[in-house]
């Protein structure tokens, strides 16, 4: 065998399993015509393939009987009794509307609490009222701790549309159309526009209307508790607070005790803290600010994004890009959403320096978006853990990330060489 033969062994294995591309098949056939050793190897693998097929065909022959035994076992069991009315919170938490709300307009999460509450001071119901009645809203959103100095997301909401800007990326504007399930992303400096189709998103004609229906339904839920926090001074303003707790989230609303208007909302969901502040309701809005038309003179692209479909593989690919392409061979200090937002301008600048084509830039951007979505819509059990700070790409001994997938008792551990293992809880990195 010569030096090409090692590569051809892979091709031969792929050919036998039917996964070799047409182009590589031609290369392989060319090699096989000249290399007796590889021809022998190919013949051996084909014989083994036949044996494997025979073995599994014979195992398959009994499949019907096995299956029938299982069906017989089911017959003697009963399906669990279902409640006659499923909890409204469970329906809402299953609903992608709620999940999207937390992404596109953080304020939704802050109002998923309603508990009849009697008090001499403004009640929680009164505090919620402006949100229930408003047709427009303006607010600032901070992801993570306010003192951490992260960027501020500025949202203007009108009907089913949101105009969003970031304090650390002045030229970036997004118009989010929740009814059409689309985002128009604009770069006002480069005069570039991209339409992003949001897959898996149900249409929401009137965002505030849906919000009101969600709140009305939640009033009946037994698992919510609301705690009065009394009066506190926050940023020089005397405010009255309410903490609403649910197994999945905690929300604190601070309101002006004189006007009962909500001023600040804090939400803890999973490992993310979201703060909404500077809230203003029913502000007259210029409709042209929410137009989904690409401004004149802009170049345009079209991409698709599945908000809820990011996989572990997408996350690993994103880690690779961040380490290999953007961070000189080292993993980032953090993978939290708020840190990603902080680092976004530096990453954008690094991508520009790479001298990529528009298509390559878009592809890289989409890969990083899916990487971020894996964390943002984390589907595992409990918390994820990141320990990649200071670790070099390729360090096979260093565990950099681990989490527990739902319904499994083992953890998925990602190492510095981006390999993944299933690890028992007692064997996790300390």
């Amino acid at each position, binding site marked *: 065998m010569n030096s090409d033969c090692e590569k051809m062994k892979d091709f031969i294995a792929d050919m036998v399993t039917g*996964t070799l591309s047409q182009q590589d098949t031609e290369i392989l056939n060319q090699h096989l015509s000249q290399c007796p050793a590889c021809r022998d190897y190919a013949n051996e693998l084909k014989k083994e393939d036949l044996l494997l097929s025979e073995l599994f065909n014979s195992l398959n*022959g009994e499949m019907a009987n096995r299956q029938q035994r299982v069906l017989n076992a089911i017959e003697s069991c009963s399906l669990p009794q279902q409640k006659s009315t499923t909890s409204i919170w469970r329906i809402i938490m299953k609903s992608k509307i709620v999940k999207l709300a937390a992404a596109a307009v953080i304020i939704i999460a802050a109002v998923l609490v309603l508990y009849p509450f009697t008090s001499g001071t403004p009640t929680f119901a009164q505090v919620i009222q402006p949100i229930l009645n408003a047709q427009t809203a303006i607010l600032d959103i901070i992801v993570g701790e306010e003192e951490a100095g992260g960027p501020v997301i500025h949202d203007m909401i009108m009907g089913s549309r949101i105009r969003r800007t970031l304090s650390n990326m002045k030229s970036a504007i997004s118009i989010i159309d929740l009814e059409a399930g689309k985002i128009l992303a604009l770069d006002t400096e480069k005069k570039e526009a991209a339409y992003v189709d949001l897959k898996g998103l149900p249409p929401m004609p009137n965002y505030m209307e849906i919000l009101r229906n969600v709140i009305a339904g939640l009033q009946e839920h037994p698992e919510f508790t609301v705690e009065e926090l009394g009066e506190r001074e926050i940023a020089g303003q005397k405010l009255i607070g309410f903490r609403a707790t649910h197994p999945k989230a905690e929300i604190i609303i601070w309101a002006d005790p004189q006007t009962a208007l909500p001023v600040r909302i804090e939400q803890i969901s999973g490992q993310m803290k979201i703060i909404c502040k500077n809230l203003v309701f029913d502000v007259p809005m210029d409709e042209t600010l929410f137009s989904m038309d690409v401004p004149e003179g802009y170049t345009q692209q079209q991409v698709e994004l599945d908000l809820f479909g990011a996989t572990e593989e997408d996350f690993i690919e994103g880690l690779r890009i961040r380490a290999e392409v953007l961070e000189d061979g080292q993993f980032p200090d953090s993978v939290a959403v708020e840190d990603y937002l902080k680092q976004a301008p530096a990453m954008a600048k690094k991508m520009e320096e790479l001298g990529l084509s528009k298509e390559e830039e878009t592809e890289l951007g989409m890969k990083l978006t899916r990487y971020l979505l894996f964390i943002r819509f984390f589907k595992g059990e409990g918390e994820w853990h990141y320990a990649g700070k200071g670790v070099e790409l390729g360090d096979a001994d260093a565990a950099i990330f681990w989490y527990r997938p739902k319904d499994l008792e*083992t953890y998925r551990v990602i190492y510095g060489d981006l390999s993944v293992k299933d690890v028992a809880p007692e064997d996790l990195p300390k």
Partner: protein
Amino acid sequence: MDDRSDEILVAASCEGDKNAYAALVQRHYRHVFAMCFGMLANIHDAEDIAQDAILKGLSKIAELREGVQFGRWILRIAGNLCIDLIRRRKRIKRVDAEYPAITQKAINENHDLHGAIKKLPKELRVPLVMYYFDGKSAKAIAERLNISHSGACQKIRSARQQLHELLTGRL
């Protein structure tokens, strides 16, 4: 064969329709068995654990949030039960009097092959076994195991190469 989608069958199962759950079993059982055989490399263990997984799925069907994910969900339950068994290092013995002769014969004749399959590491054996049970579709394996198509192809390739090394005594 019931041609309703998994999502509808799961919803019906949650409403108490056992026939709907039986339809899900008929659609997914072979993949559950293949996963168990891949993890455990033993037919008897695979049969037992596959049945346990199906029955556990029956008791927990109401916890499944997205019915369309039933296939992956039941495979994860099966994988978890296999890991439990491996951890307990339990050997399940059965009297093979009723065991179909053809299958035992196939294993006897392919003893080396079966032994070699058993020696493969789990992360390669599972996709290899599922591949041969599933009509040799790497794409289907990728979907069931929630990995990329290229990842599935790579695992199947490595499994075939290692299997050859085991059979020719080089490993």
